[in-house]
């Protein structure tokens, strides 16, 4: 047998990553059919959640892994995205105007962009203030802002307060039957595919490279003529928009939003997904979301102390598997026959 090179997979050049992503997309496209054929229809809904959390975690990873900024308040934007869908739906069904100005809507082509833009606006304000600090202070300030929003929504009785808002029907998309869970799955898959394609592009853009340079060595980038604050703020806004998109999809999937979407534990879950999957990699957070949700499902069915098990897994990943589960899979992939050169 030939020698096994563990780094080979990690450095696979050229078109291989694209081909792997396309292969994964094909498998995901076939998933609902496979799931019902195998008698696990619940799998489709699990994977829908994985895709949605994957978008949120990858958005967080954009500023965390590429920008070097640890935001502990990203659930705020996730929740905002969800509430935009929920509030627009309530105004739509009550035939009222939001703040006496904005009519409601149940059209996904309106609610999704609205959620993304509103989340981006919140990220602009929170980012503009938080980015004046750094390090641990940044972590605490983003956390504080998210908790402020959490308590704001808890107190908003008009929109369900503590109990949240029920969205009776998933938003509509022209020509599609959005009451069908499979259709919702495909919509999420399509959006996730576009999202990751865009993110891949962004990471390789001049902007993405400057952001990554700032993480590695701010002083060097400043000497080259880069003003850090503006780049980080734009990155923070983009990241908030991505989380808002995920929140809007989650609201549609669950047909429910509540302040829990922006609770600090949700921010922590997103961070865990990023760390589990591999910080600073394109698909790591999606893999991390999958690992987290699968572990949650499996462990929760064995024991009510599932979070303890999860904690142990996380500990192992952080201490033993640098690069997270994604790196683990890449290393295992290199062991497969036919992969060595």
């Amino acid at each position, binding site marked *: 047998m030939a020698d096994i090179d563990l780094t080979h997979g990690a450095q696979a050049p050229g078109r291989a990553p694209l081909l792997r992503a396309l292969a994964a997309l094909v498998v995901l496209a076939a998933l609902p059919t496979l799931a019902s054929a195998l008698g696990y229809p619940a799998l489709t809904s699990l994977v829908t959640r994985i895709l949605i959390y994957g978008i949120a975690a990858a958005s967080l990873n954009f500023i965390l892994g590429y920008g070097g900024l640890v935001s502990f308040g990203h659930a705020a934007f996730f929740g905002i995205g969800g509430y935009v869908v929920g509030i627009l739906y309530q105004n739509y069904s009550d035939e009222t105007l939001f703040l006496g100005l904005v009519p409601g809507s149940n059209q996904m082509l309106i609610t999704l962009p609205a959620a993304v833009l509103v989340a981006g606006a919140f990220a602009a304000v929170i980012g503009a203030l938080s980015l004046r600090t750094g390090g641990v202070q940044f972590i605490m300030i983003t956390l504080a802002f998210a908790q402020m929003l959490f308590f704001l929504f808890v107190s908003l009785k008009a929109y369900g307060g503590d109990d949240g808002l029920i969205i009776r029907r998933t938003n509509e998309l022209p020509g599609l039957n959005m009451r069908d869970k499979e259709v919702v799955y495909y919509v999420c898959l399509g959006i996730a595919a576009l999202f990751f394609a865009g993110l891949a592009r962004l990471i390789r853009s001049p902007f993405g490279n400057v952001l990554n340079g700032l993480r*590695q060595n701010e002083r060097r980038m400043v000497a080259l003529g880069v003003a850090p604050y503006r780049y980080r703020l734009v990155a923070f806004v983009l990241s908030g928009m991505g989380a808002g998109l995920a929140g809007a999809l989650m609201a549609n999937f669950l047909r429910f939003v509540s302040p829990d979407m922006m609770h600090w534990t949700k921010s922590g879950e997103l961070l865990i997904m990023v760390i589990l999957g591999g910080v600073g990699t394109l698909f790591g957070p999606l893999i991390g979301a999958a690992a987290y949700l699968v572990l949650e499902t499996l462990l929760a069915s064995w024991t009510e102390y599932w979070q303890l098990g999860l904690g142990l897994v996380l500990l192992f990943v952080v201490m033993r598997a640098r690069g997270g589960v994604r790196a683990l899979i890449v290393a295992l992939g290199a062991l497969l026959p036919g992969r060595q050169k």
Partner: protein
Amino acid sequence: MTAPLLQVTGLVKRFGGLTATDHVTLDVVPGEIHALIGPNGAGKSTLINQLCGELAPDEGSIAIDGAEVTALSAPERARMGLARTFQVTCLLDEETVLWNVAMALDVGRGHSFRFWRDIRRDESLTAEARRALAGTGLEGRAGVTVSELSHGERKQLELVTALAQQPRLLLLDEPMAGLGHVESQAMIGMLAGLKSRCGMLLVEHDMDAVFALADRVSVLVYGRIIATDLPGAIRENPAVREAYLGEGEEA
């Protein structure tokens, strides 16, 4: 007489009770290498950091090509054509040699607020970075990750990166520090060849390098410039000998 490329007037910087820069006035004219020498802790790096905009002075003014820049940020000054190297090298350690240069080139083009162009596959950018590396000792090391470079190579990469910024004025903070004899000679050769491209303020301990390269020399002691003159005259200046060179020769 040509207008100075850099004009520093009455610059003061205090750290608590310590006056690290004490009413410094100096200039660099186009095509000149102006060396700044002085014992450790004299305030040379502190001066460079104020010139490039990292550190705000308490008093005084800085002008580049006649334009007042004292209130401008470091990135704004960099975009005006001011480049620097660091005493302790400061590079993108996770990237390759080539990419460090490419990054300087791309930021220099002023197009960094673009979100869609794939610069990792930008052939013209990498070709330009290769041209910048051509003829330097790093030519064959383009694909090496910076964290794997030797100290001398890092020093050299700092200079190549600074030149990729196409500066009018170059601030060099001890470019020879820690280099072996051969590496120092190569660095001296490289700097000598750059005179026509930009003016330089050269902070350096290596006296051979200073006297080989400098058109003028200023001596900084306890934050104050005690003499500015031609290299030959500096060598003979009794105050300088006492404050600095004498010590160096005896040590």
